[in-house]
Structure formats: structure tokens, C-alpha cells
């Protein structure tokens, strides 16, 4: 009986908290679904910092009287069912008007029906499977698609190498990366000598990479989620001496995320990746972004492409708030997002494709080199300019 009384008390406490929150009607509530716990909590952290940095820098851009409140929720990783529940609560209980964050493809996919039903604009800051934006008309993506980076990787690689091996994580983005690279590489006349899909939860990459090595390719293309796994696979690559036996290591930028580079030792030196952002880029917009970041979070902290995704995501959200003068409507927001452009993002010019609501940006070829004693993804050339998601272009009727 006591337990029931406690239960009621708790329920009441929750309800009171809710009324309390409703008192600030002028505030625009933005729900953030992000990863703060579990093995990939570092990803959530670096995105969180990106969002907050933008908000700090741009406080004055908001229309007068409008305030923003972030309602932050932790999905604990690729946890679609949890994400869906959180989204539901954000909509029903917290009455958020915009939803953002979303590192994981499955999580984004899970909330698509909710976004549609609630006409809630969702700005995806990371999840990179191509098909996501087709799942709800209220989805817009500011990050990237795996096709965007892996397709140019394949085209570029086919010019230099003939035999490639593909290793990807076994989930949506990994399969996208595999398909994109394979198509571009084959179209360019290359041969795929083998491929493997590695379980998403995987402790040891060595056997997989050993297998790749034994297949004797000229180049190994790999995609794993940017985070601790990137360091793991880099270690396996180094331990097995692939570089010494002449196997080049390439992939989308998830392979050498800027924030993980310090953990990798010298292993990634000479690895080529294609991506939309490098912290080492010398564009003025990026230089000032990096400076602001270091000032805020310390010299040791490095932003990654995910931080920039978060930063640009907040920019898009600010833009839609400004466009609607603080009165958020689902459909109006989507009109605003469809027209979003920023010529001066840290990653270069970006825009959202009005047709697909997906990101349009440049892709850069980078090599890992030592700059001032530290590893950096040095941009060498722009391999694709204002590229739309190739998957959607290929599958267009």
C-alpha cells in the first residue's frame, strides 16, 4: 500500500512539474534526442557542445522576446524504441515545437510516423542513411548521407586502384556506404575482391581485417560509426601491418573523425578519406569556428563533423524561427527549411535541397598528416561540389 502511495506522489510530482513548465509560453521549446550514455556517449557530448556553442554565439539573432529552451533527452545509443518513446513524450508532455539531434538512423526512422502525425519539424543533425528523409515530410537533414561521401570515394578510388575490399558495419548507413562505394568503384572499372559486414556491436576487428588483408586488395574501403570503433579498426589496420603490405586504407570521414584522431597514435598516417568537414580545414569560416570552440571548451578539445552538423542544425533552426518571427508552425517551418542556405558554414557552402529536404554540400578528399605534431585530416581537393544525395538522384524516376 505504501508503494502505491509513493507511486501516486511521484505521479503528482510529475504533473506539477508540467504545469510549471507551461508558464513560459514565450519560450520556444526544442526537443533534443541525443546520446549521453552507453558506449557512444562521446558522440552525444561533441554534438551537444556544437549546439550550445552556436546558441551562445548567436543569442542576439533571435527575434525580440523569443527565447529558446532545449529539452534534452538521452536515447543511450541506437535505441529506436526508446527514441520513439522519448519523442512521444517530448511532443505530448513537453510540447516541443521542433525536434532535433538524432545521431542514429534507427532512432530517426522510429520517430518518422510521429513527426508526420504531429506535423513536427525535425532537423536531423547526424543520422546518415539516405532513405531517412523520405520517411516523413517533416524531416530535414543538415548532416550528410553516406552516399554523398562514399560515392565520390568510389569514383576517386577507381582512378587509382583496381582491386578493392569493402568492410562496413552491418546497419543502414554501413550498407549505404557499401552500395555507394561499390557502384561508383565498379562504374569506374574497378573490381571488388571481397566484402564483409561487421556486426554493429563488435569487440574485435582483427579477424575481419585479417581476412581483408588475405584477400590481397590494393585498397580497403571501410565504414564504421565515427566514435570509439574508428580507433578500434585503425588499431587492427596497424597491428596487422596492412600499410606495410601495400594495402591502402580509405573510407568516408567517419573512419578518421577529428575528435578520435588523438587516440589513434600514428596508425592513420596516410589514410585517405572523403568527407564534408575537417577540423583542419583552412576556410576562414572554419578557422573562426575552431577558435571559438577552443576558447569555449579548451585547447585539447576538437570538434568533429558531428559538432558541425549540430552547429549548422541550430543555424537552420534559428533561421526557421526568424522566418516565422517566433510563431512556429509545422508546415511553415518546412517551407523555411526547404529554402535553407548558408554560404559560410565551417564546412563551406551548404543548402537544403527543396525537393528532398536533404543536405547539399561539398565533399573533400583528405589525407591524415601530421600538422604541428598532431594528426589532422588535411583537405587536398574538392572531389564533389554542391553534391546532392546520389542515391536519391540515381533512384529518381
Amino acid at each position: 500500500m505504501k508503494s502505491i502511495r509513493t507511486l501516486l506522489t511521484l505521479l503528482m510530482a510529475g504533473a506539477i512539474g508540467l504545469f510549471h513548465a507551461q508558464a513560459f509560453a514565450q519560450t520556444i521549446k526544442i526537443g533534443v534526442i541525443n546520446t549521453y550514455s552507453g558506449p557512444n556517449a562521446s558522440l552525444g557530448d561533441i554534438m551537444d557542445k556544437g549546439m550550445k556553442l552556436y546558441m551562445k554565439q548567436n543569442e542576439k539573432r533571435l527575434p525580440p522576446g523569443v527565447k529558446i529552451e532545449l529539452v534534452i533527452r538521452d536515447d543511450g545509443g541506437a535505441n529506436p524504441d526508446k527514441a520513439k518513446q522519448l519523442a512521444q513524450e517530448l511532443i505530448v508532455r513537453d510540447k516541443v515545437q521542433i525536434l532535433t539531434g538524432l545521431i542514429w538512423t534507427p532512432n530517426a526512422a522510429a520517430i518518422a510516423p510521429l513527426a508526420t502525425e504531429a506535423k513536427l519539424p525535425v532537423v536531423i543533425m547526424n543520422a546518415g542513411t539516405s532513405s531517412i528523409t523520405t520517411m516523413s515530410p517533416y524531416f530535414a537533414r543538415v548532416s550528410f548521407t553516406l552516399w554523398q561521401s562514399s560515392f565520390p570515394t568510389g569514383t576517386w578510388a577507381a582512378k587509382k586502384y583496381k582491386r578493392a575490399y569493402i568492410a562496413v558495419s552491418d546497419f543502414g548507413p554501413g550498407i549505404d556506404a557499401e552500395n555507394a562505394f561499390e557502384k561508383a568503384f565498379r562504374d569506374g572499372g574497378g573490381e571488388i575482391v571481397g566484402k564483409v559486414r561487421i556486426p554493429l556491436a563488435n569487440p574485435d576487428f582483427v579477424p575481419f581485417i585479417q581476412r581483408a588483408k588475405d584477400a590481397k586488395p590494393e585498397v580497403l574501403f571501410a565504414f564504421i560509426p565515427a566514435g570509439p570503433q574508428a580507433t578500434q579498426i585503425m588499431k587492427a589496420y596497424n597491428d596487422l601491418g596492412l600499410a606495410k603490405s601495400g594495402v591502402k586504407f580509405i573510407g568516408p570521414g567517419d573512419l578518421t573523425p577529428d575528435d578520435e584522431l588523438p587516440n589513434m597514435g600514428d596508425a592513420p598516417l596516410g589514410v585517405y578519406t572523403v568527407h564534408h568537414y575537417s577540423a583542419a580545414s583552412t576556410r576562414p569560416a572554419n578557422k573562426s569556428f575552431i577558435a571559438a570552440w577552443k576558447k569555449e571548451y579548451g585547447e585539447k578539445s576538437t570538434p568533429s563533423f558531428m559538432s558541425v552538423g549540430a552547429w549548422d542544425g541550430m543555424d537552420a533552426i534559428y533561421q526557421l524561427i526568424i522566418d516565422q518571427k517566433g510563431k512556429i508552425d509545422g508546415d511553415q517551418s518546412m517551407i523555411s527549411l526547404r529554402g535553407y542556405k548558408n554560404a559560410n558554414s565551417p564546412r563551406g557552402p551548404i543548402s537544403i535541397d527543396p525537393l528532398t529536404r536533404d543536405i547539399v554540400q561539398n565533399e573533400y578528399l583528405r589525407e591524415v598528416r601530421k600538422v604541428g605534431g598532431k594528426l589532422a585530416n588535411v583537405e587536398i581537393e574538392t572531389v564533389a561540389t554542391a553534391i546532392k544525395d546520389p542515391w536519391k538522384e540515381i533512384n529518381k524516376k
Partner: protein
Amino acid sequence: MGNLHAGGYSANAALRWQESLPWLVAIAAFFLLPEFLNLGARILIFILFALSLDLIVGYAGIVTLGHAAFFGLGAYTAGILSARAGINDPLIQLVASGVTAGLLGVVTGAIILRTRGLALMMLTLAIGSICLEVANKASSLTGGADGLAGITIAPVLGQFRFDLYGKTSYLYCLAILFVCWWFVRRLVYSPFGASLAGIRENNLRMHAIGAPVYLRMLAVYAISAALAGFAGALLTQTSQFVGLNVVSFELSGEMLVMLILGGVGRIYGAFAGPAVYMIAQDQLAKQFPEYWYLGIGSLLVIVVLFAKGGVLGLVDRMVSRIGKGRRS
């Protein structure tokens, strides 16, 4: 005998007034807390899951680390029926989920119930892990690590649409839970339930009085699996999505924890555990995920060392202390 719902031939099986409390609270919550109905529905689902677990852990004495396999199969059955076969009626899905999970219970139970102790625990873990691998690898059916999307659920009885606020979900889960609770309660107080207690208390003697111990265990294992399958189906129907985590070891473990915190082998422990755990998690864990696990971990250790019987055990002790105080 502290244990209120032990069943048996000397137990009084009549309903007590306290037993209406969970239902009154549930109905009150529906009217008073309309914004918490989605959470409420999840709590009801996990109560059903805990109830199924209580049958085998608390009443039959089988410690399992892989009960999520049945929950997950139920969830996937409902999801696959909708997403791949276009069968969207919730009640048909529910029945199908119960049947498939029950069948898996029969098949795996037939294998693992030949062993006892650590080997049995390991086998439940291994079979749970196999189910996870299958769900992960059969991605054309299950969506693999990306999860199974594209599920639509038809209105319950053709009338009540699943809404964003979770009204339908809540009442629907409440109704199913009620039916399952009624069944479990009857089971616990039945001769079959008494024989389960016998098996738990002394397996050897049950053999010696000629009881078909293996078949009894198999039966309760299958029943429990089917109930877990129902719970899984409810989760799919209310969230319209199935992720790999429904088959995970973590879920099995967390469920066990909720049940133990509530109190094992007493029906209402399965109510108190998930309710307290999930409400506390909802209120506390969002802000402090680290401290949440620190708290839960410490609580578990304390419960095992000092507070056997979980939340309801504590309530029992308090009630009896107050009773004594009055009498003296």
C-alpha cells in the same frame, strides 16, 4: 507466512480488497494524468512482462537470463505481420505473438529444462543470444540493426485508433494486462500452481511423488513465454516500431531487476517493481543517467543484503509492525 500469494491447498484464493488498488490507481491515472499515458502504457506492458517472468522465476524457481527472447519474438511477430504481411489487426497480432512465443517456449524449454542450476542459466543466456543474432541477421524480415519500421496498427476492434496521446494504447494494454493477471492469479492458486511451488521447493521430492516434473516445468515455461509474447506484441503495437533491443540481454537483466525490486513470487511484486522503477527512471534518469545506475545498483545490493522480498516485502514488514504496535 509473509507471502501473500503463494497459492497452495491451504491458501484462501478469494480476492482481497487490496488487490483492487492497482486497477483503481491505473484508472485514476488515466483521468488525472492524460499526458503520461504513453509512459503509463509502457509501464503496463512491462508489468505484464514482469508477471510472466514471475511465473517462472518466483513460482517455478527457474532463474533465466534470456526471457527477452520471448518478449522479442512476440514483438517481432506483431511487427512482421504488419510490415511484411499487411495484417494490421491488433488482436490477431496479439494472438499470433502469444502462439509463436509459446511455441518457442516449448521448443527451447524442451531443450534447456533438462538441466538445472548454472547450466540452465547459461542455456537461457545462450538461447537468448541466439535469438538476438537471428533477429540481427534476418534483416530482410526484421530490419536487423536498423529496426523494423513501417508498422501500421488498425484500430482495436475496428473502433479505437491508436492516438498520439496514448489513450487507446493505455486502455488497450490495461485490458490485456487485466485478462492476463486474472489468468496468472488463477494459475497461482490452482493445483498446477501448487505443484510448481513443490517443484521450486524440492524437485527431488516432486519426482518421488510421481509428478511429471519436466512436463510441468515445460508447461509453465511455455505459458510464461506466451505471456511475454503478448507483452512484446503490445510494445510493438503501441510504439509501432521494433528494435533489436527487445531481444537483448540487457532487457532480460533489467526485467529481472525490476521484478526483484518489486518482490518475487507474489504477483503484485510484478506490479510494484516496474511501476516504481520506470516512474523513478522517468523522473530521475533523464537528468542523471550515471547516478541512476549507481542508485539502482546500490539499491539491488541493499535489497539482497538487507531487504529480502523487495518493495512488497518491505510493505509487508511495515504493515505487520504497525499491526503489532496496535495490538500491544
